């Protein structure tokens, strides 16, 4: 059995990480106890060094014969609730320096990457780590940009208003799509009435409305993957068809997004997104990737740290 000792605020994250992968984790004070095994060992080794951990094998082995399903489910539900209580779906705009405080001062790689990030970006808006962060971050950042940008607004509204018929023609049931479409269009309407960012933020912080928007963006992503299935099929792992991939990795809530999702959504909406990566790889400078990579000017900039997307704001010159 592994024992991991953590600072309190990191404990929850790591706990959640293991539970979501289906491991039963016990929390004792500031320690996590994990079952032995190669997979767990690899996962522990891959954990970001934001947490100082110790491994030990002085604990008794776990009781293998028991049905742990319920215990795991309850723990996962509690975790999700705790995360929800701690983190709003989309946060206020914060100074970029808050990112540095999430890592220990002697974490050279992260601290220097965040310094590098601060050369170009002044603010960050965080999203809840609930598996929907890409859609929520993209949705908010893009709609915020539409406020006061009439030409882009008209283009997008026109595109969005036709999207429901496209979804229905691809076989999505019209009466379930309708609900999500309505909320999506109402949000766009409100943006058009020169809503301010604070009002848009309220919409995105309201779980009922915010999740409707996330579902609709998921459906648009799925539709694009299926429409261009000949192309996307080459990137799908595990011998699955595009349709299977969509119903397993795109349409369910909380399923995380990979490059393929970003390519499909930005393609569907005709919006260029820049993703800036802050992770443990390479040297002390951050790198980025634009979707699509055709030289268009990115409308939205997202910050990616392993497993999570937040919104970035350029420095005003």
């Amino acid at each position, binding site marked *: 059995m592994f024992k991991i000792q953590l600072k309190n605020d990191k404990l929850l994250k790591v706990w959640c990480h293991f539970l979501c992968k289906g491991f039963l984790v016990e929390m004792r004070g500031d320690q996590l106890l994990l079952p032995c095994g190669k997979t767990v060992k690899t996962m522990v080794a891959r954990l970001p060094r934001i947490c100082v951990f110790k491994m030990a094998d002085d604990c008794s082995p776990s009781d293998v014969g028991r049905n742990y399903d319920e215990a795991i489910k309850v723990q996962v539900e509690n975790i999700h609730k705790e995360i929800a209580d701690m983190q709003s779906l989309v946060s206020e705009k914060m100074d970029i320096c808050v990112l540095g405080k999430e890592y220990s001062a002697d974490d050279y790689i992260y601290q220097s990457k965040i310094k590098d990030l601060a050369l170009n970006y002044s603010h960050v808006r965080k999203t809840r780590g609930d598996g929907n962060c890409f859609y929520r971050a993209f949705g908010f950042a893009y709609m915020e940009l539409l406020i006061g940008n009439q030409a882009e607004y008209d283009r997008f509204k026109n595109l969005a208003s036709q999207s429901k018929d496209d979804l229905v023609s691809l076989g999505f049931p019209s009466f379930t799509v309708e609900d999500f479409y309505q909320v999506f269009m109402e949000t766009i309407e409100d943006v058009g009435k020169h809503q301010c960012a604070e009002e848009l933020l309220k919409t995105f912080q309201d779980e009922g409305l915010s999740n409707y928007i996330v579902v609709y963006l998921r459906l648009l992503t799925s539709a694009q993957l299926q429409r261009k299935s000949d192309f996307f099929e080459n990137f799908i792992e595990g011998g699955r068809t595009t349709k299977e991939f969509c119903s397993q990795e795109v*349409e369910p809530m909380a399923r995380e997004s990979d490059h393929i999702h970003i390519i499909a959504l930005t393609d569907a909406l005709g919006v260029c997104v820049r993703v800036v990566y802050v992770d443990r790889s390479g040297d002390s400078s951050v790198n980025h990737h634009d979707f699509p990579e055709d030289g268009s000017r990115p409308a939205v900039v997202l910050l990616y740290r392993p497993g999570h997307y937040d919104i970035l704001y350029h420095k005003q010159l």
Partner: protein
Amino acid sequence: MAAWQRRLQKELIEIQKKPPPGMHLDTDSVSSNLATWIIHVDGAPGTLYDGEKFQLEFKFGSRYPFESPEVVFGGSNIPVHPHVYSNGHICLSILTDDWSPALSVESVCLSIVSMLSSCQEKKLPPDNNWYVKTCNKNPKKTRWWYHDDTV
């Protein structure tokens, strides 16, 4: 009326107006808050379940459609199928992991009928005895492994 009830009301009207072939809603079973329904399902013609009649019991929570409904076979006839336990619990990914808010009662029924229809041999799941003894009453409390989609 809460959002989940509005959505269910829409589905209720839809399924009564255009019931999918071989299925009908038991209107008496629908509770006044819409949280429980029973749907009668006929085994599809030309399959191993031809001529059999089944009941699907649906329970909805206040987070529907963001959370999946709880769906089990009920009544006196539980289909013998490698993915259906003798207590009525169904091992089908869209009922838990792969549930999407864009799915509906109708799409759940259609998936279950299609699962029955593709069956080649009527037999119980291999771990039926252990599962039925140890499981929770609510199948959503089970962490299912979906390893075989071909049965």
